[in-house]
């Protein structure tokens, strides 16, 4: 089988950080770790060319780099494309994932890379590209290359690739239906019985672990500025800023200085995860602006912050929610907000 191999400027022996802006060059045969991999294949495969590209060059010129590389590779009629291993090097990992994805898509040949599970190159590409797990530094090169050498012929054969735990690649987030000899109900009760008896059991779905934060002391309401936020997707009629109905990638901010009430036909919900009828009839049922304005005028608290923040809580990624929280908090801290009311649907 013919292999094309991608490595960065360091593994290509061009240089370290000072050579990170190296544009892609293609060399005949195997360079650096590609040579090691080729040896391990014991004649079953040949690295016909190695692409060496600077990590910063790739990061800063992704489309040009990909175009150049794809053009060079297509001259070779390779069977498979291999990149890395990138270990925990972030730019390198992103480059490996990105070029593998592009090769698979444009040249229709399988691609394989390898990196440490926390490498930033994992998340964006693991669904489409097989990424073998490695240690966090080049010290584990001796373990990484044999894994890659072993996996390559399997990728090219008709054999089914098994589950990540067995095969050593990073989970791709796929759900695969398998048959079991026991129904889900029986398996669940068996698990519960073990749990109640204090016996060990294997969960079929690991639950995420959430951290807790120290509660902040209570505030003095009559001096306080309060801000209101909702994840219920309340936006001005027509959704002028195109807030998405699910998988929110941002939050929006709207001024409420001069309104006392959210009215039917002026505001609406765009949240795709609950029945919108009641919210659209009266958006105060989600973002309680009317009573907040009244409580402000009654001086129950000092001031209502002049803007509200909105996102859609429907299948929002926890990492995004965290980012929204942090970004909103920064703005509120700058503007002297003392307390927040957040409504969710």
């Amino acid at each position: 089988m013919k292999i094309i191999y991608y490595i960065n400027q360091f593994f290509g022996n061009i240089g370290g950080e000072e050579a990170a802006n190296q544009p892609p060059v293609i060399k005949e045969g195997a360079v650096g770790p590609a040579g090691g991999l080729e040896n391990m294949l014991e004649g079953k495969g040949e690295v016909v060319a190695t692409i060496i590209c600077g990590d910063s060059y790739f990061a800063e010129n992704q489309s040009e780099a990909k175009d150049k590389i794809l053009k060079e590779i297509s001259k070779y009629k390779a069977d498979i494309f291999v990149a890395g291993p990138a270990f925990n090097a972030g730019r390198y990992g992103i480059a490996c994932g990105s070029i593998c994805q592009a090769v698979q898509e444009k040249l229709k040949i399988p691609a394989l890379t390898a990196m440490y599970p926390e490498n930033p190159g994992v998340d964006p590409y693991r669904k489409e590209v097989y990424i073998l797990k490695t240690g966090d530094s080049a010290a584990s090169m001796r373990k990484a290359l044999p894994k890659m050498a072993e996996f390559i012929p399997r990728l090219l054969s008709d054999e089914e690739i098994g589950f990540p735990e067995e095969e050593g690649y990073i989970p791709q987030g796929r759900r695969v239906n398998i048959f079991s000899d026991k129904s889900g109900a029986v398996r669940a009760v068996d698990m519960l019985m073990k749990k109640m008896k204090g016996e060990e059991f294997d969960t079929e779905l690991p639950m995420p672990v959430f951290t807790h934060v120290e509660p902040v002391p209570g505030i003095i309401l009559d001096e306080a500025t309060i801000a209101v936020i909702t994840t219920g997707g309340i936006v001005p009629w027509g959704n002028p800023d195109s807030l998405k109905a699910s998988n929110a990638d941002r939050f929006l901010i709207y001024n409420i200085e001069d309104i006392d009430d959210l009215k039917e036909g002026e505001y609406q919900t765009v949240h795709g995860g609950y029945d919108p009828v009641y919210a659209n009839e009266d958006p105060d049922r989600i973002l309680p602006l009317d009573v907040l304005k009244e409580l402000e005028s009654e001086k129950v608290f000092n001031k209502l912050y002049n803007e509200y923040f909105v996102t859609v809580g429907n299948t929002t990624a926890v990492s995004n929610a965290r980012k929204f929280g942090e970004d909103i908090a920064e703005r509120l801290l700058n503007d002297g907000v003392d307390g927040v009311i957040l409504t969710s649907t």
Partner: protein
Amino acid sequence: MVKYIEKAGIPAVHICAITNISETVGANRIVPAVAIPHPTGNPELSKEEEYILRKNLIKKALEALETDINGQTLFKGVRV
């Protein structure tokens, strides 16, 4: 979001219907809402009664903000 706003030093109260999700994720101040599609409303009530209910809910939320707490606390007591 509530958790990370609180982490930055601003007390935040979460009004939501499924309070145990909020508890699991880690909000410290939680007020049970009326229902998922209308957390601060109740379409079964008259407009006037609904307004009073909403005001009571927000007053409870404000009470949560002014209360010192030791850990996660549910602020119940508003008749929805």
